């Protein structure tokens, strides 16, 4: 069953150009040049109930703006959104009780009080029954491993702990739909992993529909089977995640640091040389051949340091984007 349906969503906003300096300020007083920016151009997709999808894109692609329209914070310039029979920006309370949004860079917790107080406030705001509230908090605290932190002031928590509390606060009223905007931004690897595990488990158990934006590929890989990619406000891909990996050419990047200046010719035998910075070389290697190539390099070259990374998401998206245009 489709729970979220987005059709031709579009968002423009105007801003004003200002020339620098005092002269510019004076000119501004009398004449302002209005510029229109299209944050979201024409985005359509739909989400099944209980599904967890990733909304991907580089910074400024329009991910957050899309999420804000889905949660009714912003009005779209054009297009429709239907969430469980509601139009988000009509802001009906009945609708608001059905979803929750967590933004990685904003907090809703009271800074100087323990997190449990903020939970209690949400209980009052969402009119949650006492017994149910207690049960929910206990259960979630257990799952998120924050039981001992309930009575610590939020300002004393680490970033990772705080994010967990933010997520907990957002789930007090058992929303059917959860929007997560960069929930792992700025967190260390372990905290990221824990939050991912939790979301995975929670989605399986409660069948909550989740839309997640992130620019960490790992988040998306671990949680979503489907991804919607937008770039410059436009939808460039909507489909299974495995297919993207395929589309990206299954490439990995090998960064090698040798103790002498590298010989590009010698290296190009192992893969495509992307970049040489003194003794540091970046090689592009296909995923299947990674093990083989790596052991070859380690055996034959004076390697000091060695690192495997993914092809950056921006690049892959650009690739997808080019392919879209080409076809």
């Amino acid at each position, binding site marked *: 069953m489709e729970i979220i349906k987005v059709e031709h969503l579009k968002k423009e906003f105007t801003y004003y150009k200002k020339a620098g300096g005092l002269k510019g300020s004076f000119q501004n007083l009398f004449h302002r040049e209005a510029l229109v920016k299209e944050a979201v151009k024409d985005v359509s997709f739909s989400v099944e109930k209980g599904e967890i999808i990733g909304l991907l894109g580089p910074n400024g692609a329009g991910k957050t*703006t899309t999420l804000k329209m889905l949660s009714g*914070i912003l009005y779209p310039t054009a297009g429709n959104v239907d969430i469980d029979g509601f139009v988000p920006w009509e802001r009906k309370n009945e609708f608001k009780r059905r979803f929750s949004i967590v933004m990685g860079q*904003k907090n809703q917790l009271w800074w100087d*009080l323990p997190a449990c107080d903020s939970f209690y406030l949400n209980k009052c705001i969402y009119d949650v029954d006492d017994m149910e509230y207690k049960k929910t908090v206990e259960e979630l605290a257990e799952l998120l491993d924050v039981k001992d932190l309930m009575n610590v002031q939020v300002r004393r928590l680490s970033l990772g702990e705080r994010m967990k509390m933010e997520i907990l606060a957002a789930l007090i009223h058992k929303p059917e739909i959860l929007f997560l905007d960069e929930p792992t931004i700025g967190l260390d690897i372990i905290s990221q992993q824990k939050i991912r595990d939790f979301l995975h488990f929670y989605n399986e158990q409660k069948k909550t529909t989740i839309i997640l934006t992130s620019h960490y590929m790992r988040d998306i890989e671990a949680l979503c089977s489907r991804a919607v990619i937008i770039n410059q406000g436009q939808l460039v891909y909507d489909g299974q995640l495995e297919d993207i990996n395929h589309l990206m050419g299954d490439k990995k990047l090998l960064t090698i640091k040798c103790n002498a200046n590298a010989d590009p010719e010698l290296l190009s035998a192992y893969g495509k040389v992307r970049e040489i910075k003194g003794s540091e070389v970046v090689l592009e290697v296909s995923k299947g051949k990674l093990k083989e190539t790596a052991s070859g390099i380690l055996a034959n070259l004076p390697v000091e340091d060695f690192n495997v990374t993914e092809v950056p998401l921006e690049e892959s998206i650009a690739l997808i984007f080019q392919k879209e245009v080409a076809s």
Partner: protein
Amino acid sequence: MRVNHFLKEMKRYLRLFGVFAKFSLMSQLEYRANFVAGVAVELGWMLIKLIYVAVVYRAGVNIGILTPDHIMLFVGIYVMMTGFYMFYYPNFVSLSSLVREGGLDLHIVKPVSLQFLVTLRQLDFGMFLADFVAGVIMIVLGWQRAGLPVNFVSVVGFIFLIICANLLTYSMFLIPHLLCFWIVSTKGVADLTAALWDFNNMPQLIYGKWMQRIGTFILPVFVITNFPGLFVMGELSAGMMVWAVAAPVLFFFIARAVWKCAVRNYSSASS
């Protein structure tokens, strides 16, 4: 059915307000030194308010129908109303950063009135208590010394008018702060309105006729502190009584309309 629903909502909002009050107090007690400093600053400003009363007592003259004791009552009302205003004033100040930094987003998605949530969330107890206590003392003292009647009608009417005055204060002084949805710096406007508030330090009777009219009907600051006092003295005409109730309602609806306009602008103009 509708009445029932209304009462239930009312109860919910009152409860939320109680939670806000409790949390604000708890937060402030985290920083005890700041709390004490807030009280001290308010007491410092009180000295300025009091010195006006001292001058009046020193001169020993009536201002129209007002004896110095009456003036003490009026200034007491002014001090108490300042306390009520300062109680929720921090919200007005933080409104502009809430808009600029997008903190409003997380409030919009909550199933309660956004205006309620944003304008009555942080409550300052330090300033409130200092002014409230001092104001009440002055009111009681002035009331008694002036030999004003203490009966059901005068006390209940007085309290009712104070409630109306609070609604008027909230509405009238919220409006200039709402400009922050359109312009970046609202400090100028805010300072200007704050200065207007101080005109209430003296009863309206000392001002000229035109100033009194403007202050009663166009920017009704005088209604806030003068009307409750005039009522207790039995000097508030029936027409003014109607205005004492009508002005808050009128300004509340204006504030409400501007608020809605502001939020609509926020939702369509930002990204």
